């Protein structure tokens, strides 16, 4: 049961330096009010940069927003500050599990279970990931499994290229040269999913733009802006073999569109570097 947000907000407003921000941030997160939760968590982190629970809260919100790379770093920070932090071990266990790194996942989940033996859900998770109850017969490793860097990279690459960016789930689309969707989504006003329909045409439109720029001797193409009655879109190539579409409501300034698209392209390039 989530705590009463109104009451927690009042307590937080009365004393912004109190630790109530941890409960308020968590309550907002559970209600899926992620923007508000992030604001509270970041404000708390600003006051308490060495507080493990503040980093843990921030990491949980980031995970909900599918920004796994930053969440990993936050939980890593927690363990540097507090090596026996249950939440951080649970979080890292989850990230490793979802990245297909069961050995690392079991290590962290088991540590968490040892630290919180009353959590039956956690025990069940350990057994599920480890493949049975026999895991409890094995000694708890004293050091993490090898190849931690590679396993960490897997948690990051499994993420969304636009995680944490505005429009990540409805206004940004990344495709390869064949029009195969690599990340992002394009949703209409009624939440219709246009992603796959638009993906193939996006790659073809980019090819046409590159061709036109070359044959008209305009130099290297940089972007194509499309203004339409409902939405405006900006197409560009984060890398030579990918196309990105960033869409915004029609009527917003062109400069804002360019900034939005460039920021998404930067995130896509970083994600592609990690994946590849």
């Amino acid at each position: 049961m989530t705590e009463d947000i109104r009451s927690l907000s009042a307590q937080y407003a009365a004393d912004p330096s109190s630790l109530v921000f941890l409960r308020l941030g968590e309550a907002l997160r559970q209600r899926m009010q992620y923007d508000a939760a992030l604001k509270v968590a970041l404000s708390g982190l600003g006051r308490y940069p060495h507080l493990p629970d503040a980093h843990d809260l921030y990491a949980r919100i980031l995970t909900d927003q599918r920004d796994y790379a930053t969440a990993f770093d936050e939980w890593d920070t927690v363990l540097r500050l507090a090596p026996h932090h249950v939440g951080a071990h649970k979080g890292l266990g989850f990230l490793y599990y979802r990245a297909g790194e069961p050995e690392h996942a079991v290590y962290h989940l088991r540590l968490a279970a040892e630290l919180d033996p009353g959590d039956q859900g956690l025990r069940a998770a350990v057994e599920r990931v480890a493949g049975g109850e026999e895991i409890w017969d094995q000694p708890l490793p004293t050091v993490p499994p090898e190849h931690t860097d590679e396993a960490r990279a897997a948690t990051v690459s499994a993420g969304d290229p636009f995680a944490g960016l505005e429009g990540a789930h409805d206004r940004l689309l990344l495709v390869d040269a064949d029009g195969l969707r690599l990340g992002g989504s394009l949703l209409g006003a009624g939440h219709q999913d246009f992603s796959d329909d638009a993906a193939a045409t996006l790659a073809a439109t980019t090819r046409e733009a590159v061709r036109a720029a070359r044959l008209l001797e305009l130099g290297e193409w940089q972007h194509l802006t499309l203004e339409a009655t409902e939405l405006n879109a900006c197409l560009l190539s984060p890398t030579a073999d990918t196309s990105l579409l960033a869409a915004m409501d029609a009527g917003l300034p062109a400069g804002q569109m360019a900034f939005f698209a460039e920021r998404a392209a930067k995130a896509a390039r970083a994600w592609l570097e990690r994946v590849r």
Partner: protein
Amino acid sequence: MSPSYSSLLEALTRLRGIRGAMVVEAADGIAVAEELMGGLKGTALAALAANLAARAAELSGRGGFGMPRFLHLQATDGSLLIAPASRNLVLVAVAARDVPLGLLRLEMLRMAEHLV
């Protein structure tokens, strides 16, 4: 060339940094009228602009963007601008590098409305 198209294109090419302007049939990429300078080839420009406009229209339809109003291809040495107009026509302009495009865009949108 129709006198009305001619005067319209002349007005566009009088703007600073405009290398040429055309009225093109969208469906088959054929030039209807042109006012080009400095080595721009009308046939190629018409075909490429029509192709790009067609692709963009398809993307707009598949992406749920609505009807295309304006296209701006930005490249390192210049820009290609396309304003879909009525009756299967598109208005096309090529601008040199570092040309402010705001006024050109407004003029093209205004002219495209009256292009018949």
